[in-house]
């Protein structure tokens, strides 16, 4: 584990998470959640958990984002908070 990369990626993860729950548009919220999942995948690759990183890249950043975008496409993008 290389600690400067670790700290940088952890701060990116926290920033992406806070931005994903605080943005007003649901579609950009879903895209920010995809960025969050990809940063999480990088964090696990840094920590040496490569199998978890592979699974997170396909399932978390891939399938979850597609699910969110499909659900938002079938409902509405508007939100008040």
């Amino acid at each position: 584990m290389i600690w400067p990369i670790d700290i940088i990626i952890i701060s990116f993860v926290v920033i992406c998470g806070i931005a994903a729950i605080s943005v007003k548009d649901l579609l950009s919220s879903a895209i920010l959640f995809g960025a969050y999942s990809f940063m999480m995948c990088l964090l696990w690759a840094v920590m040496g958990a490569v199998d978890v990183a592979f699974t997170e890249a396909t399932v978390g950043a891939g399938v979850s984002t597609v699910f969110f975008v499909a659900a938002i496409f079938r409902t509405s993008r508007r939100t008040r908070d």
Partner: protein
Amino acid sequence: MDVLGYIISKYNYWGFVLLMMVGMYAMIVKNNLMKKILGMNILQTAIILFFVSTSAKTKATLPILEHGHGDHAIHAVDYINPLPHVLMLTAIVVSVATLGVALALALKVYKEYGTLEEDEIFEAQKKKLNPEMQEGEVNS
């Protein structure tokens, strides 16, 4: 101050605490159902981050044996502990299944009420239960 250095050196766990608080906040405070589902996912990934952080080591390599069939002794200190990784692999798959079920329920709610905001759904439910109630009496 040795205590301060000890606290700062656990930065992975501080990140875990921050992410878990963000997810709990989104699940409790946010009014939109999609935001609540997003917060649930953030909470799940934060817990996975905690378990993977417990297995991280400095000066250790990936848990793949370098001399598989030799006479060498294997030192467990040289390898990262792979047990939390395997457990969290299951947790990721469970989390995406939970996400699918939650989004299907949200789609059903949208088809029923035409909105994803929680207070509007409660208003529509109240109006559906007793239709003769006037608009002013709803806030009782």
